[in-house]
Every structure is written in structure tokens, then in C-alpha cells.
């Protein structure tokens, strides 16, 4: 059974070129970039080359790139580091209901430190309304953090419009571009953001390497204090091979972006069409303004994990935002904010496509999926009579 990996949003297989680029830094070039001798300098140069490659991917200056260990770290660093740096001017932050846990939970942790956070809702396409952001601004607002593209529903947020508002109010803007950078064009000059997170394993680079773009002149407090690595902004011995791999992956992504996008977009459209033929299945997220490779749905009357398990039995790897599969056992905040009823949100299914996927793989998914849905619906108490079938727990219908 051939593997159909449609979970690129969880992580990506690394490209062979990326691994090859990393290889020397595991073995001969093991130096610490902080050491002044040749071994250290070669490691340092490799890190600096990677910095240039990553900068180029997002149209930043190399000095504006700070390497971290994960997208989650970049998000924590950006939101907390800027909130703390600006706390003299105010303690109000704005984020959206479409944020990744690593932004959402950082915001919550800041609430415990006395910050006030406004969580702006999204519309039924998962889109943040810049006007709502604008209305949420108070004299105390210092930082806005809005996701660039949702990893759950694919919607690309109007960052540029939000940036204009932020600028007007002299508020710094961070965007979590972990799901987008390397997969669609991300240009920090065009977006006019002050900070941006990206993660290598989302664009065929290694795990353990990520970055934060911080615009020249922007103030931030470190998340990890210590030595003077990354210009004193992020301590810890650099993970040289992973950073080198991230650089290479960025270079390859920059070169191949249009081709990659066209490939996954055409597959996604094919898959979406196929899947929407099933009754009571709804696309989630914006129909057009979305990540090209991400097809996300809710399937009524059944639950996501069951779908995933049966898909797996056919060699198909997907994801779900359902509470059961989230391991945190909580309904996805973005689906809730979009107005998807909680009951329906449990039927979330997300296929995230990658450059290695083929039309055949998509077609086999289109063939298998309706049968899987049928099988689970045949077991569901709701499929025949709808969601009303079992209204109040404990009650039962007459005539049984």
C-alpha cells in the first residue's frame, strides 16, 4: 500500500538537498560558532549564509533574522518579548481567534502578568476583519499578533491592511507565518510587519530550526538569556546543522515557490471538488484566499479521529482539528469563532498537500473517503435524524 502523506502541516519530509547541506556540520565542521578559531569560524560562516538565505526568502535583511528552535519558540519570543519591551507604554495586546496555541497560550500567560488581551473573532471564512482590530485598539495597546495563514482552515489573513492600522496607531505587529512562509510568498516589506515567525520543518527543512524576523530598530526582550549568540537576543549554542538546513530549504523554497504552489493548488482543487460531492460536508476557511495546499472540511455527524483511523487503514495520512484528536480535548477555537457548531467541529478533517503528492494519490483519496464517511455515518446516531436526534443527554424518543 503506497503512502499518501497529506499532513504537511504537521511536518514535512526533508528534501535530500537539505540533508546533504547539513551533513558536513554534523561531522567535520562541529565547531561552536562562538569560538574564534577556524572550526568555529566555519560554523559561524555557515550560520551567516543560512541567515542570508532565510532573509532572502522573506525579503528581510540578514541582521533582521534571529534563529530559534521552533515556530512555537519564535511566537513566544515575539509576543512576550515585544509585550515586555513595550510595557512602559501599555499592557494591552490584540490577537485573533485564529492563532496557533503558541500565540494563544503565550497571550494567556501574559494575562497572568497583568496584560489585557483582546481576542478578535474571525468571520465564517476564518478571516479577521481589520476594522475589528482597529476598534479593539486602546491607548494601552502595544502589540498586535495576527496569524498569517491558518494551519487549520487555510485562510490567509489581511495582514497588510492590519499593518496599516497598526502603523497608524504606532503599535507593533507580529505575524505567525509558520504555516505560510516557504509555501506562499511572504514579503516582510510588503506586509509591513515588525516581526514574523517562520519554521523550517514547514518547508521541507529540518526540525529544530526556526526563525524570527525582527525589523531593524524594533525593541524586544530575550526569551532565552545568556551568551551573545544571535546578537544577544537568543542565547544557547547554535544548532548549526539545523540552521544550515533551514537556510538551504529557504533557498530551495524561494526558487521553486511558483512551481510548488501551482502543483499543490491544482491537487487541492481536485481533492476539494471530489470531497464536496459528499453530502453534508462543508469546506472550512476562505474558498479562495487560502493556503494553496490546504483542503479543510467539516463532515457532519461523525467525528474526526474515526475518519483519520480509517483513512490510515488506506495509507492516507491526514489531520483533524477535532477535540478528540487534539490531545488537549478542546474544540478548535478557530472553528468555534467561525460559527461552526461544536458538534460539527468534531467532524473536522484537514488534508495538507505537498510537493511529493500526485494526482493518483488524490484520486485514491477521493475514492476512499466517501466510503469512510458512509461507514462512520452508518454507526452514528445522528446520520439519519440529524443533530436533533439526541438532544438532551438522558432523554429518549418515544416508540422505541
Amino acid at each position, binding site marked *: 500500500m503506497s503512502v499518501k502523506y497529506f499532513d504537511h502541516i504537521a511536518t514535512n519530509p526533508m528534501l535530500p538537498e537539505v540533508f546533504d547541506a547539513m551533513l558536513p556540520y554534523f561531522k567535520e565542521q562541529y565547531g561552536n560558532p562562538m569560538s574564534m578559531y577556524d572550526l568555529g569560524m566555519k560554523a559561524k560562516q555557515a550560520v551567516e549564509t543560512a541567515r542570508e538565505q532565510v532573509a532572502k526568502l522573506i525579503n528581510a535583511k540578514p541582521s533582521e533574522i534571529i534563529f530559534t528552535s521552533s515556530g512555537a519558540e519564535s511566537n513566544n519570543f515575539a509576543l512576550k518579548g515585544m509585550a515586555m519591551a513595550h510595557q512602559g507604554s501599555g499592557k494591552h495586546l490584540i490577537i485573533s481567534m485564529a492563532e496557533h496555541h503558541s500565540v494563544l497560550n503565550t497571550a494567556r500567560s501574559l494575562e497572568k502578568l497583568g496584560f489585557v488581551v483582546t481576542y478578535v473573532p474571525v468571520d465564517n471564512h476564518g478571516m479577521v476583519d481589520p476594522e475589528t482590530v482597529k476598534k479593539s485598539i486602546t491607548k494601552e495597546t502595544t502589540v498586535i499578533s495576527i496569524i498569517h495563514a491558518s494551519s487549520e482552515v487555510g485562510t490567509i489573513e489581511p495582514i497588510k491592511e492590519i499593518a496599516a492600522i497598526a502603523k497608524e496607531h504606532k503599535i507593533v505587529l507580529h505575524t505567525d507565518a509558520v504555516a505560510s512562509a516557504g509555501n506562499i510568498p511572504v514579503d516582510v516589506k510588503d506586509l509591513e510587519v515588525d516581526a514574523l515567525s517562520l519554521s523550517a520543518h514547514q518547508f521541507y527543512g529540518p526540525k529544530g530550526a526556526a526563525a524570527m524576523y525582527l525589523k531593524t530598530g524594533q525593541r524586544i526582550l530575550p526569551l532565552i538569556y545568556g551568551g551573545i549568540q544571535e546578537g544577544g537576543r537568543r542565547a544557547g549554542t547554535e544548532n548549526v546543522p539545523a540552521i544550515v538546513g533551514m537556510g538551504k530549504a529557504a533557498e530551495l523554497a524561494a526558487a521553486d515557490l511558483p512551481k510548488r504552489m501551482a502543483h499543490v493548488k491544482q491537487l487541492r482543487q481536485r481533492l476539494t471538488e471530489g470531497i464536496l460531492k459528499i453530502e453534508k460536508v462543508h469546506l472550512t476557511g476562505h474558498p479562495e484566499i487560502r493556503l494553496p495546499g490546504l483542503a479543510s472540511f467539516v463532515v457532519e*455527524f*461523525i*467525528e*474526526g*479521529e*474515526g475518519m483519520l*483511523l*480509517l483513512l490510515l*487503514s488506506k495509507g492516507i495520512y491526514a489531520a483533524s482539528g*477535532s*477535540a*478528540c*484528536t487534539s*490531545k488537549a*480535548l478542546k*474544540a478548535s477555537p478557530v472553528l468555534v469563532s467561525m460559527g461552526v*457548531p*461544536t*458538534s460539527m467541529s*468534531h467532524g473536522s478533517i484537514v488534508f495538507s498537500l505537498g510537493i511529493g503528492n500526485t494526482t493518483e494519490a488524490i484520486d485514491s483519496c477521493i475514492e476512499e473517503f466517501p466510503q469512510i464517511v458512509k461507514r462512520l455515518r*452508518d*454507526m*452514528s*446516531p*445522528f446520520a439519519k435524524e440529524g*443533530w436533533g*436526534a*439526541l*438532544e*438532551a*443527554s*438522558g*432523554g*429518549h*424518543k418515544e416508540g*422505541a
Partner: protein
Amino acid sequence: MYSEKLMDHFTNPRNVGEIADADGVGMEGNPTCGDAMKLFIKVQDDVITDAKFQTFGCGAAIAVSSMITEMAKGKTLTEALSISKEAVADALDGLPPQKMHCSNLGSDALRKAIEDYRSRHV
């Protein structure tokens, strides 16, 4: 994550469906929570002669439903009432910690079906 036994009960669930002329029906959970189970029983001489289920929920919830209906069949009502959630989990060769609540679903739905039967046969 799941045991082979559990996967077997998920992939080939026993006793799926409705019993049109059930003697007792129990419902537990609700779709908002992501788990809902409807359990039907036929009872003769205080013994559960048949049991079927309909479940909305994760793999564990479906496997638990399958297992509890299997366990209930042939048992007296009193015996059936004493099937603990641990017993169901054990019968499935264990449940991951975060799925333990699913085993409640089964025993609670069964209890409600029995209560429903009794309330109709007082």
C-alpha cells in the same frame, strides 16, 4: 496509541445499529462534547438477549461501544449493571489515559438503557 484489540473493535465493530423494538434505550454524552452513544437492549427474563449501539465519537468511543454491547449480551441486568468502566477498558487491552473517559460512556449508556427498561416494566 491503541491496542490491537481496540483497533479490531473499531474497525469491525460488533452490534452496530438500532433495535426497532428495543426494551430499553440509553443515551449518554452529546455531540457538543464529541461523544454520544445510543445503546439498545432486548431483555428476556431479566437477561439481556441482544444489544446494539449507535455512536458518534472517536475510535475509542466506537470500540468501547462495541465491547460493552458484547459484554452485556447474555448477562442478567444486575450483572450488566456491575460492568465497570475499568472492565471495559481492560477488555480492550487498555485505553490511552486521555481516552479513559470514553469507557464511562459505555457503562453509563448501558446503565441508562437498563434504567429505561426498568422504568417501563415496573
